[in-house]
């Protein structure tokens, strides 16, 4: 599976071959590594978070945004009368739900009750992702929240249990 990282001028392949190339590479390379994100199993990012991010980017990002930023104007119904995909980062409300509720929503899908259509705007993934993969996505989403939000969400998850 492809490991996603942010593009930089060097990664695009525009490398000038002259006497300044080598020092330039030495100067810029650390920045490239940092901007590109840590490779898997680097020790700074747990493996399960990396895995969760990969699953998120493959199955969720197209609707919920590559950084979890959600659709534009997610607070208002769209032209079809459906509520757009909300953010999963600190600006959204994903952190307000327990692990059990998040799992259920990903597995079974969801339709906002006041949508003008009958379809599940959040599709069901129980036949596409394993239970473990769903858990990994949830663990990745938690990295997009503030510490206060993670604390609140832990308490919600405990109250449900």
């Amino acid at each position, binding site marked *: 599976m492809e490991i996603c990282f942010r593009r930089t001028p060097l990664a695009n392949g525009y490398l000038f071959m002259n006497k300044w190339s080598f020092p330039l590479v030495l100067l810029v390379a650390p920045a490239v590594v940092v901007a590109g994100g840590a490779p898997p199993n680097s020790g700074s990012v747990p493996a399960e978070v990396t895995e969760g991010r990969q699953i998120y980017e493959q199955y969720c990002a197209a609707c919920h945004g590559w950084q979890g930023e959600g659709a534009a104007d997610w*607070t208002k119904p769209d032209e079809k009368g459906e509520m757009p995909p*909300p953010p999963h980062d600190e600006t959204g*409300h994903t952190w*307000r*739900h327990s692990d059990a*509720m998040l799992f259920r*929503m990903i597995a079974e899908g*969801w339709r906002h*009750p*006041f949508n003008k259509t009958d379809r599940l705007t959040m599709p069901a993934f129980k036949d596409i992702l394993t239970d473990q993969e769903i858990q990994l996505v949830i663990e990745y989403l938690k990295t997009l929240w503030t510490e206060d939000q993670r604390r609140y969400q832990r308490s919600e998850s405990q*109250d449900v249990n």
Partner: protein
Amino acid sequence: MKTMVYRLNSGVSRLFLFALIAVMPGLVQAQSATDGQAVKALTTDASGALLVLRNSGLLAVEGQSTTEIPLPPSDSGAPPRSMAKGADESLYLAGPGLGIWRYDNASKRWQSLNDTLPDLGITAIAAHATQAETLYVYLGESGMFRSRDGGAEWVKVDSGPREPVQAFLHSDMPGSMESGWLFAGTTRGVARSMDCFCFWGDAGELRGTVTAIDYDPSAPENVYAVIEGQLHHSSDGGETWAGLKIPEPVTALTFSLKEGLVVGTEDGDLLSQNASGEWVPVHE
């Protein structure tokens, strides 16, 4: 002849005086029971009696019988403004400067639930429709707080809708991600959120300052809101609204098992609809 007329007049006078003395207490009581004071809040108790809050106090009204319930003790003398009934039929009263109190039916005493609240500036309260220990209070700029243990511990859960909340309720209307919905009457109209506090959105296009709000627990999609004395009804969870014609300006409302929708008015009256749909007084 003159003597007879004199004796007759004296007798009638005495009779009139005795009759007046006999009915006077009833006249005084009937006068003070409503005294034209607006109904501030309404709910019902476990037996189905109407609990009526006015500036003069709190009364339990059942049929022809009216019983006064003393108000919570308050050093500040602040009057209650908001009333709610819990899923276990517990009665709650609250107001700015008063905080929130629960009434214990067995001991007939009020218990303060203010220990862990940041201040006593409560302007509205709501009780979870099905979870007896879950309560909500609105503390203005301090935000919305929730207790899941009957008021022992309060946690801030949200800032609330953008506009100040005048009244709010928790409903078990289906379709929520969590356990129900919150409907808040604000200075803009009715705001609605699932009780995860995920997002406060407008409930329809109803605009104006909502001073009272309630829903029909037997048909939860039916929500009622009061704006400037006018009662409005939604049958679709707040998506659309229609005005209802009531003969007097409404100031409070509740649902009674016996009477159905009961409204309290600016003049202190209690009205409900008869079989023909006319608004008639609830006997008090």
